[in-house]
């Protein structure tokens, strides 16, 4: 085991950039994905029939195909098609459409939206009807019932599952190294190519991921414990499925 390359500021720079990109991508995808998930759940439960059907097809496809294939499909497939759109290279959109971060975030948001959307849909169906009817009886509008009763109660029910989904999201992030985005794995790949050390860089980032997973687990558990009305339940050390 030779870790002398760790003293090289260039390699440390790569690793730092990779770490920051990993966290940034995690944050963007988690926030965007959970917002999309609520819309997905609502569309499936209360949307007009064609929309509900379309959203069902969307979740089935996203959950039935590998994330790596989706990443390639959006970055290379859709990106390549976009290149052919006349005039697009002059618009403000163009720098975005060349950016692997944009496509990675897009793919992850859609993926989290599909997986967590199904989780939230199930939880929303489990909220007793009487509670929602009580809300209406107290004079809340339909929108108020949704934001003050239905969603908070549903999230209470599925919070442990949702936090598990966030851990899974963190563990999917190394996939973006395949579309040349500088994440931790890409940093390790560069170090491997330059120093000819195969195991050391990979082991180091495996350690970083392990630590990040544990920290994220603790943060999410804090969120779970402090979520209003959460019942303390028996918890596993790592909420990974």
């Amino acid at each position: 085991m030779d870790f002398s390359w760790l003293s090289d500021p260039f390699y440390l720079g790569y690793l730092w950039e990779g770490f920051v990109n990993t966290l940034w991508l995690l944050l963007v995808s988690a926030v965007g994905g959970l917002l999309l998930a609520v819309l997905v759940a609502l569309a499936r439960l209360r949307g007009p029939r064609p929309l509900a059907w379309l959203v069902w097809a969307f979740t089935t496809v996203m959950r039935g195909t590998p994330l790596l294939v989706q990443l390639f499909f959006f970055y290379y497939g859709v990106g390549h098609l976009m290149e052919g759109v006349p005039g697009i290279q002059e618009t403000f959109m163009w720098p975005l459409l060349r950016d692997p971060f944009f496509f990675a975030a897009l793919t992850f948001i859609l993926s989290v939206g599909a997986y967590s959307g199904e989780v939230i849909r199930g939880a929303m169906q489990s909220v007793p009807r009487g509670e929602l009817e009580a809300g209406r009886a107290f004079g809340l509008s339909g929108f108020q019932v949704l934001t003050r009763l239905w969603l908070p109660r549903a999230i209470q029910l599925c919070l442990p599952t949702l936090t598990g989904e966030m851990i899974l999201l963190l563990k999917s992030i190394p996939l973006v190294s395949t579309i040349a985005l500088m994440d931790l794995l890409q940093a390790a790949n560069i170090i491997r190519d330059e120093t000819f050390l195969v195991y050391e860089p990979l082991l180091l980032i495996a350690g970083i991921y392990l630590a990040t997973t544990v920290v994220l687990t603790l943060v999410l558990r804090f969120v779970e414990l402090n979520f209003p009305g959460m019942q303390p339940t028996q918890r596993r050390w790592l909420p990974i499925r």
Partner: protein
Amino acid sequence: MTSMTPEGLIDWAGPILSGALTTVQIAVLAYAIGLLLGLLGAGAKLSPWAPLRGLATAYSTLIRAVPELLLILLLYYAGAQALDALLAYLGMAGAVQITGFATAVGVLAFVQGAYMTEVFRGAILAIPSGQLEAADAFGFSRWDRFHRIVLPGMLPNALPGMSNLWLILIKDTALISVIGFNELFFTIQQAAASSRAYFLFYAAAGVIYLLMTLSSTALFARLERYVRRGQPTEA
């Protein structure tokens, strides 16, 4: 583009189908070994002997806390090196194709086993302890108790988790392409790069994987009905 693309797909149909076959072979073998590892892991985790319990806990916790792609890369390099050394020792150096296939299966099975350990552990713990005590009271041997009581008792509990893991495994086989082994997604990448019809080929890849996962879902639904036979239906 439309005039060129159908030709591209037909030209590549043969390699893509054989890639899909390789993917299915890898997945089935890795799943079988993963099931075995999971049973062993769950047995070790529930064992009264602390070192064995610690080993199984370290295995399932470490593997599940590190991203699959990272593990696959690490284990692939380590596994390929070990297998190459073994083959060279046996005087069969250069059997790269065997090495690639075997390491792909081994790596996926090793990762799968860690997740399977947790599924089986939970399912075994969910068996009412009275049933196990009854088996002991009737003088069942350990093996009889395992395959007549524990196995059929835990299968209904374990099957949803097992079917989830099979779907995850099919999708994880695509990660093997990162290593450069010639399975379905690697073939697709070659096809897309050489025909430059990226959209078409990656969409086709999505459809093939979707067919695999949807048909497996249907199969597992039937299997679940079978293992739940004789159970009271819940309202």
